[in-house]
């Protein structure tokens, strides 16, 4: 039998000092852990409270933009010309997408997209929070996307407004366009942007951890201010008539461009304004070049300028009559077709002898006008041109208006005395010419043409119309009811006769510059015709300008432009229900 081993008491069970030590260590560790947690809490709740709050808010809340609906554009009879409809645009949050390939294939299936390209875009945007997939979906496409049941945090619709034009391309040059970002490009869309575009609102949505919206924080909601409706002076029925006639003109004469303007001379309102070639609906249309697109976008009525030619002559006669430099019953000898002014010999189309002032206009004699110009001198000619608004913008609200070209008086020479009275050496827009003729029709008062009729809303806005006397009423009436009526009755504008109405008008045929010689071309012309009716109380003034007609027997304004102008004038008078002139068949 072996004796029991003697084990020291200290190794069998801990003594009180060891136990205390272990207890203290555990206590210290616990205190340290709690201290760390407490410090961290203090740091999170105290020092980085703002950052933490911001982070938490960002995770829980989402600020959604409430897009303002752009105002409608209507014509003078409140027919809708442009409006906005709500659409959904699809955006992804690439940072929330774990399976880009699967998401891309799902979306590509319903939207007709290339799945590989979309997957590549999602992968490339990984880490970013926003990626457009497609904007302005159709309602069917939006429904199909919603039915895909994609992870809620990975995608969302953004509400946008798509601009639509119920009348199609009618008045497209006057209206302009609103692009996919809602920015007005050209025309009324750009000119009246400040009224049409409202102010977007916003609201804060509260989301749960899965991305579902659980609440709307109403206290932070800012309601959108929708755009105001704008009414134009355009009559869309008349506008459609004018555009149809311009299309026929383009087919008949095959010009580079053409335009038409219809003004109400009593108010300066633009009733119709058309320009050809037409604004392309799809700029990427097959076969269209950049030059075609540029021509299509241009509103020739106010941005193209040409030498007004004979349409300018009545203003010189009006100025000379008002200044007492010529008399109505005076006659001028037109030299049988040739007249020497210094080193220059002027010619008429026909060899006229003695012509009265009225006949100088009716026959459109350049020599007769040059002689009147000599009476006025360069100072008087310049004064007349500026008085009728040449050389500066008319003030119409639409963007892109050209001021035309009127050289400073210091640059005028002795040639100018012969050229200006026949409408050469200066350039004007069709709108300037129409507005100046409207001044004669309005008893000598020039009104700034405008397309804005009214801005609807609690505080309606109206156009600022500037009026200015430019000729005496007596002279204006005599010109309109005398020589200008005779132009249509027995002069160069006989193709503009209208049954039942006394029509006044003036033809113009301007030579274009020859790009090779720099001088006037004998083959490239701009034919124009401006007319109005009834002569005793004009209700409408119509101008048609045709740039380089290439088909037909003549390029004269009385041949290429007058028939179209007469058709437009007839449609305008019918539209306005203007009573026929008394005593006419």
């Amino acid at each position, binding site marked *: 039998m072996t004796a029991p081993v003697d084990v020291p008491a200290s190794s069998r069970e801990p003594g009180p000092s060891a136990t205390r030590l272990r207890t203290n260590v555990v206590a210290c560790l616990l205190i340290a852990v709690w201290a760390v947690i407490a410090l961290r809490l203090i740091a999170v709740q105290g020092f980085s409270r703002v950052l933490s709050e911001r982070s938490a808010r960002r995770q829980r809340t989402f600020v959604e933009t409430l897009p303002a609906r752009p105002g409608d554009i209507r014509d003078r009879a409140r*027919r*809708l010309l442009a*409006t906005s*409809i709500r659409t959904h645009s699809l955006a992804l949050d690439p940072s929330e997408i774990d399976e880009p390939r699967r998401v891309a294939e799902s979306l590509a299936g319903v939207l007709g997209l290339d799945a590989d390209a979309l997957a590549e875009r999602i992968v490339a945007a990984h880490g970013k929070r926003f990626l457009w997939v497609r904007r302005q979906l159709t309602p069917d496409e939006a429904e199909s996307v919603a039915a895909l049941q994609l992870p809620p945090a990975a995608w969302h619709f953004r509400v946008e407004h798509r601009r639509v034009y119920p*009348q*199609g391309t*009618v008045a497209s040059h006057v209206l302009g366009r609103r692009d996919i970002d809602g920015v007005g490009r050209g025309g009324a869309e750009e000119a009246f942007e400040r009224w049409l575009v409202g102010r977007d609102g916003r609201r804060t949505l509260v989301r749960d951890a899965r991305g579902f919206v659980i609440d709307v924080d109403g206290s932070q909601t800012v309601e959108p201010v929708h755009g105001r409706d704008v009414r134009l002076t355009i009559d869309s*029925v008349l506008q459609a008539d004018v555009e149809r006639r311009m299309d026929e003109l383009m087919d008949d004469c095959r010009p580079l461009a053409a335009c038409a303007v219809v003004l109400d001379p009593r108010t300066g309102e633009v009733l119709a304004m058309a320009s050809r070639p037409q604004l392309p609906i799809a700029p990427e249309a097959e076969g269209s070049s950049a030059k075609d697109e540029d021509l299509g976008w241009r509103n020739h009525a106010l941005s193209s300028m040409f030498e007004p030619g004979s349409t300018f002559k009545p203003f010189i006669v009006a100025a000379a009559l008002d200044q007492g430099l010529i008399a109505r019953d005076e006659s001028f000898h037109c030299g049988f077709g040739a007249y020497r002014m210094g080193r220059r010999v002027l010619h008429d189309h026909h060899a006229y002898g003695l012509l009265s002032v009225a006949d100088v206009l009716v026959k459109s004699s350049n020599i007769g006008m040059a002689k009147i110009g000599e009476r006025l001198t360069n100072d008087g000619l310049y004064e007349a041109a500026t008085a009728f608004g040449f050389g500066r913008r008319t003030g119409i609200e639409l963007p892109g208006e050209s001021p035309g070209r009127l050289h400073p008086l210091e640059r005028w020479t002795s040639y100018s005395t012969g050229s200006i009275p026949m409408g050469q050496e200066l350039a004007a827009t069709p709108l300037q010419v129409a507005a100046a003729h409207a001044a004669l029709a309005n008893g000598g008062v020039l009104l700034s043409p405008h397309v804005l009729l009214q801005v609807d809303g609690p505080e309606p806005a109206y156009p600022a119309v500037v009026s200015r006397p430019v000729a005496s009423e007596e002279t204006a009436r005599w010109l309109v009811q005398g020589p200008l009526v005779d132009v249509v009755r027995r002069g160069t504008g006989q193709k503009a006769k209208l049954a039942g109405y006394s029509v006044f008008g003036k033809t113009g045929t301007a030579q274009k510059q020859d790009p090779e010689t720099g001088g006037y071309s004998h083959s490239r012309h701009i034919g124009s015709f401006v007319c109005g009716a009834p002569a005793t109380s004009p209700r409408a003034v119509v101008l048609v300008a045709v740039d380089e007609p290439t088909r037909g027997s003549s390029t004269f304004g009385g041949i290429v432009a007058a028939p179209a102008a007469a058709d437009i004038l007839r449609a305008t008078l019918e539209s306005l229900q203007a009573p026929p002139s008394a005593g006419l068949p």
Partner: protein
Amino acid sequence: MSEPSDFDRPAPPAAHVARFVAAIGLLVAISLVGVAIDNRELALRRRISLDTFRADQLEARAARLRFELEERQTPQRLRAAFREEAAGPAAIAP
């Protein structure tokens, strides 16, 4: 002499118990009313939200219908229709 234990204390009078129960009941009632008001508020907010959404949808639909209506009654379209009508059935292309 030793202190009396809890078991040795006399039972509270019935009035005290009633007051205590009444207080608890009042608290519960207030809580229930609060919960009911909260539920009602949530329901109303949900309804307002839904109505706003529906109004938005209707407004959007009205705009779309107005557009379609105006598109169908444009002067060009009406003129073409009148022309066809005036020309009679024989003039209408097959």
